[in-house]
């Protein structure tokens, strides 16, 4: 009896192996693909179709909700992605951990369309501009409903105003939540000073009884649906929400906020590196970048694309393209594994408070 069992196991394994072999063959036949891993709702799906029609390269597209969810998947290499779009501090962490491939800019001639300022900004996480190509950028600020908030909104203080109990939507991501508290206290958003962190944590704990919910992407839908009066949101979502609900407005707090940038990077060992570079190049084409901006409404660093925006109000919108010199802006940097873990622990203390 036991022999038969072993035989059955062997048979299963062999059939499994041959199955794998078949799969590989199938993949080789159609190797003209690219595996893209991007933020949720972060590209006009039409562009993916257009890219495939133009180049014959098939796009396999996956989405994530936070940098922290994306990182372990790339690190473990469970799925071989060819192109990922992380934020500044996460790119630094990936470079430090040797997870990224240098981009061959000969294959990305359209990189010249990205404004000089943005390459300079990228230096803070990609010192020689070798690993990343800026995709979108923006600020973090306060989205508020003008029918519910009558006062002038220009400070993070409003998020601690008891008047707005149960009307506040807070960001449910460690770095952004702490950024708000740290900036309100007048500290750097990259602080690792224990006293400052504790103070920020206590401030967030005080805020908890006023907060309606901790959410990420849902801020947008809840604000559009008049569920809350105030929400912490990325500037790119602000224009979209205003289109859907004209009562909403966006403010950059005077205490300062995060200036962030999401860039395309190629993970180490990507199997379709040239295709990935073609895709980046395609996205850097002014007409494509403009089309994409109209859809996702996140600020584009592509200068010619910005000039192509038809709606003058949007082209000169202080939300999408603010005068950066007017605000106290800071770029988030990677704090290192130890500090990241400590911050996560503090964040859980806030959430369980």
């Amino acid at each position: 009896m036991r022999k038969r069992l072993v035989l059955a196991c062997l048979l299963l394994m062999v059939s499994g192996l041959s199955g794998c072999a078949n799969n590989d063959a199938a993949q080789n036949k159609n190797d003209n693909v690219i595996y893209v891993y991007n933020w949720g709702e972060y590209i006009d799906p039409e562009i993916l179709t257009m890219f495939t029609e133009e180049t014959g390269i098939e796009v396999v597209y996956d989405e994530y909700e936070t940098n922290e969810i994306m990182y372990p998947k790339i690190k473990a290499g469970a799925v071989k992605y060819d192109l990922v779009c992380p934020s500044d501090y996460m790119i630094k962490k990936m470079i430090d951990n040797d997870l990224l491939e240098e981009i061959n800019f000969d294959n990305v001639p359209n990189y010249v369309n990205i404004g000089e300022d943005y390459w300079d900004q990228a230096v803070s996480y990609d010192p020689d501009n070798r690993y990343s190509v800026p995709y979108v950028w923006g600020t973090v600020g306060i989205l508020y409903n003008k029918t519910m908030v009558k006062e002038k909104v220009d400070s993070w203080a409003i998020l601690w105003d008891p008047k707005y109990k149960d009307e506040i939507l807070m960001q449910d991501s460690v770095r952004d939540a702490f950024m708000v508290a740290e900036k309100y206290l007048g500290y750097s958003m990259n602080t690792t000073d224990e006293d400052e962190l504790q103070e920020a944590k206590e401030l967030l704990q005080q805020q908890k009884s006023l907060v309606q919910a901790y959410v990420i992407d849902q801020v947008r839908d809840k604000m559009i649906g008049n569920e809350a009066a105030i929400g912490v949101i990325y500037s790119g979502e602000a224009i979209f929400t205003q289109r859907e609900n004209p009562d909403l407005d966006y403010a950059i707090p005077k205490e300062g906020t995060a200036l962030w940038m999401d860039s395309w990077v190629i993970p180490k060992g990507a199997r379709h590196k040239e295709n990935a570079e073609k895709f980046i190049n395609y996205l850097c084409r002014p007409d494509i970048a403009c089309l994409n901006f109209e859809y996702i409404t996140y600020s584009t660093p592509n200068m010619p694309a910005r000039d192509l925006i038809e709606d003058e109000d949007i082209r000169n919108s202080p939300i999408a393209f603010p005068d950066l010199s007017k605000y106290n802006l800071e770029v988030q940097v990677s704090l290192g594994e130890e500090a990241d873990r400590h911050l996560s622990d503090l964040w859980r203390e806030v959430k369980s408070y």
Partner: protein
Amino acid sequence: MTLSASPYILWSAGFIIIPLCLVIYYAFTDASGAFSFDNVADIISYVNIKALMLSIAFSFGATLICLIIAYPLALILSTVVSSNSSILSLLFILPMWMNSLLRTYAWQNILERKGVINGILSALSLPPLYIINKPPAILLGMVYDFLPFMILPVYNSVSRIDKDLINAAKDLGAGYRETFFRVIWPLSLPGVISGITMVFVPSLTTFVISDILGGGKILLIGNVIEQLFTQDSDWNAGAGLSVVLMVFIVISMIITSKYDREDIR
């Protein structure tokens, strides 16, 4: 061991035993792979203990409410004519045909401040109901999601009780109350026990319901574990707490099964 059992052995080896070993391996090692007890010992931190206690409290509540709703329903179902009872029980199973995540999101829309319920209440000029992002919403989500797991086993055991036994009890002079407590309840206990386990365990481990209906304001042990895995990518700490949670589940199952056996005797 027969050949016909081999697929099941392969299945349980591949999808139960090996993953379980992996969880235990991660739980008792640190990031470098050396033996460590820290991950499991982490449970005694204030945040984790609070999350675990909250989870246990919510699970108790949800299980109790499910039992209170399901038991009378099972009794009623067992007394109606068989063709009608299958339609009735189908009605309670029907929601399970839909993904539980979708159903939970539906509750979010129903309970929201500008949601369906408050729309109706305000149309009737009644005061609004604000339970979204508060403990009652989580409890409601748990009860709604897991109620069928209580109804089915209880209904099964109640409907299998020989009617002659009930008639005999009545013939011998037992009133309704006595018939219930001395005949029906003891005979239905196996179903009740498995119902309790099937509601208690998923309630104890859930993180989706507390996330969606709790607005991220109530941290259950499931949420802590989920965050350790997805956001912190600290698999060791996550596995450590998972092992602690498994111990609690095993304890609860031992208690219930012991109670079960004693009563049958």
